[in-house]
């Protein structure tokens, strides 16, 4: 056993750090620190910077335009990005549909879509959930009916993150209403610019706009846009979910949030001392720091197994559960640290730089707290994740 990174890995970390330091615009880092909902231009700007360096798809193998990094290198890259307040990478193309396309897609699909994902010419969104199908995704009802060399798609997708920016959607549709729920589902690539696609914003409790409803009304999708075999969509969807298991812990982001929390608690005063020296508050910060340390090393153990070529199984649901709970605890403590200055909530969607009410570090803390309530709901709620572990790992 060895806790140290290798010399190559340490050199890699330096290389990533130097690159970010010299290429990440300060204003973009500042905005990422303060806001949960970045503008499309912010995400694209950072992606293009990475793409120019050959890192547009950090998790991809070389043959499809990725850098071919090991899982440990990817982990180091994530850590360096988070600790520099780089905007998060938009996952829909590079983490979600991309690997599905290069694993199950046709040569035509690979040639057409993969380069555009790496360069971010396309913005993808994920058409999974529906009003009646959340945790029970396999009950989805969006229909795709065969019409010559097209499918005609009708349905209603929900909670579609960043659909307002997307020109492409990968979606699960029902192609065989008579088959068992999981067997009648297919995986389609759908053009969002089709006139039958309507996107309606859903404003979340933090008053921001990241999620949407998407109405599909007689949308014509060429059969060439079917991934793999008709009726096998559920398999590809499960592959997609399992593909990035060790990334879902959000350890790097949480470490950065912990650092910020301590900065706030050092600046805020309680009884004439920094709040961080208040015994009760300090104990709470320590408790979540220990949780995070445990998560980090659980994540690293799974990462090491992945590095050694051993697949990580459904026990990775632990990472999602603990990761989301820690994200919530950290954002909750940051709000708590602000005391009365958690209250002002002047939403400035125009991004004007009017001075905030209260200290600068108060900006965006409440917004994060509120939006992070979703982390235990999305991507399979934590209740569902526990069911998965109970069934798949414990055999209950």
């Amino acid at each position, binding site marked *: 056993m060895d806790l140290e990174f290798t010399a190559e890995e340490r050199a890699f970390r330096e290389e990533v750090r130097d690159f970010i330091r010299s290429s990440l615009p300060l204003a973009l880092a500042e905005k990422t620190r303060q806001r949960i909902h970045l503008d499309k231009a912010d995400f694209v700007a950072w992606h293009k910077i990475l793409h120019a360096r050959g890192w547009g798809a950090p998790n991809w193998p070389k043959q499809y335009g990725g850098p071919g990094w090991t899982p440990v290198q990817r982990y180091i890259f994530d850590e360096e990005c988070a600790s520099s307040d780089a905007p998060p990478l938009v996952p829909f193309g590079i983490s979600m549909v991309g690997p599905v396309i290069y694993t199950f897609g046709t040569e035509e699909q690979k040639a057409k879509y993969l380069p555009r994902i790496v360069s971010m010419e396309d913005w993808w969104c994920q058409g999974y959930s529906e009003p009646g199908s959340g945790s029970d995704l396999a009950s989805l009802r969006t229909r795709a009916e065969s019409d010559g060399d097209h499918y005609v798609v009708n349905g209603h997708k929900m909670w579609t993150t960043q659909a307002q920016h997307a020109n492409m959607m990968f979606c699960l549709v029902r192609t065989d209403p008579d088959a068992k729920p999981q067997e009648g589902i297919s995986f389609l690539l759908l053009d969002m610019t089709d006139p039958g696609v309507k996107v309606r914003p859903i404003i979340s*409790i933090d008053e921001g706009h990241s999620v949407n409803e998407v109405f599909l009304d007689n949308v014509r999708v060429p059969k060439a846009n079917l991934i793999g075999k008709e009726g096998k969509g559920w398999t590809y969807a499960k592959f997609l979910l399992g593909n990035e298991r060790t990334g879902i812990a959000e350890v790097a982001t949480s470490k950065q949030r912990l650092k910020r929390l301590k900065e706030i608690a050092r600046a805020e005063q309680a009884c004439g001392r920094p709040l961080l020296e208040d015994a009760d508050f300090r104990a709470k910060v320590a408790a979540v720091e220990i949780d995070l340390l445990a998560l980090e090393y659980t994540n690293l153990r799974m990462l090491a197994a992945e590095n050694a070529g051993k697949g990580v199984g459904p026990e990775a649901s632990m990472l999602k559960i603990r990761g989301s709970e820690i994200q919530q605890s950290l954002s909750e403590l940051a709000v708590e640290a602000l005391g009365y200055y958690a209250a002002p909530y002047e939403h400035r969607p125009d991004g004007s730089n009017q001075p905030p009410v*209260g200290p600068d570090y108060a900006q965006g803390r409440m917004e994060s707290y509120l939006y992070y309530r979703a982390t235990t709901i999305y991507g399979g709620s934590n209740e569902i994740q526990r069911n998965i572990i109970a069934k798949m790992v414990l055999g209950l």
Partner: protein
Amino acid sequence: MDFQLSEEQTLLADSVESWLQDKYDFDRWRKLVKTDLGYAEENWKTMAELGWLAIPLPEAAGGLGGGAVDAALLAERFGRHMVAEPYVSTVILGAGLIQAASDAKQKDEWLPAIAEGKAKWAFAHAEHGSRFSLNETRAKATKTADGWTLSGKKIVVWDAASADRLIVLARSAGGDTDAKGLGLFVVDASGAGVARHDYRTVDNRRASDIQLDHAPVLAVLGDPADALPAVEAVIDQAIAFMASEAVGAMAALHETTLAYAKTRKQFGRAIGEFQVIQHRLVDMMMQVESARSLALLAALKASAEPKERARAAAAAKVQLGRSGRFVGQQAVQIHGGMGMTDELNVGHYMKRLMMLDTTFGNADFHQRRFAALSD
């Protein structure tokens, strides 16, 4: 021992609930809180006509002489409907401080106007850097040849923008953290030397940061150097009110979530049939009932001797913080994506409960206060 409401109290509770059901549904609330004012003057007038603004005021001042329990009945219904009118600022804090600290002439002058809905007040106590501690007050009151003036900064003054007058907690003597040396000073809310920065808060209320620069004082309430005991007593009454307000919000969240769990179907059955959801709803209920018990205790002890009163208020505030957080968060969680939407009332209750937790000190602050008052 008797926890039964009197006939008059039952009537009051029913009439408040029926007016709110009629006039204060969620759709109207959404429109109301988006207006500049954040509430309706018309509602305030009606509340005066219905006698609600007079409930805790003494009969001599045109009030109904009701106790904290009567106010709590109102509060619970206000919480259930997220009533946005500045009741706590004007009636509980403003009139409460006037009653507790001022002289007979001032009471005669100010209290009837409050009962009639003609005057609004706000209480400026918080400062950045003192967190929740009242004795750490640095805003300064200085006696000049022409009377007192105030200088310093007050933050998150609820309802200051709609108030006619502000009661400012400021230091006339002693060091920055001394409990002695504090006084209550009345200034014109938009007068000379009062620079307000008004803003909306996360629960869609209105508050202001206020920079005082030699602001002339219109009146002093009581001893300019020994106001803290009166302030603590009135804040404990406000805590009793807010604790019941929180109970109303929590009970509404629990009912809404229970109804959702019974109707939302996944995997071919109502999600309320899953044990994990059942247990969560039971835990929520226990939190609501614990909060209800301590809110009631705080109201019943609101006029008790200081230590007994303070212990009850502190306990209720701790419970409010803990229960409010759990019930709010779980209501969102069980509603899933729907709970995350601005168009559902669930998130708005959660945010209101967070602000009730913070105002006058969060659960940690009051747990420490309770411990200090314990044997």
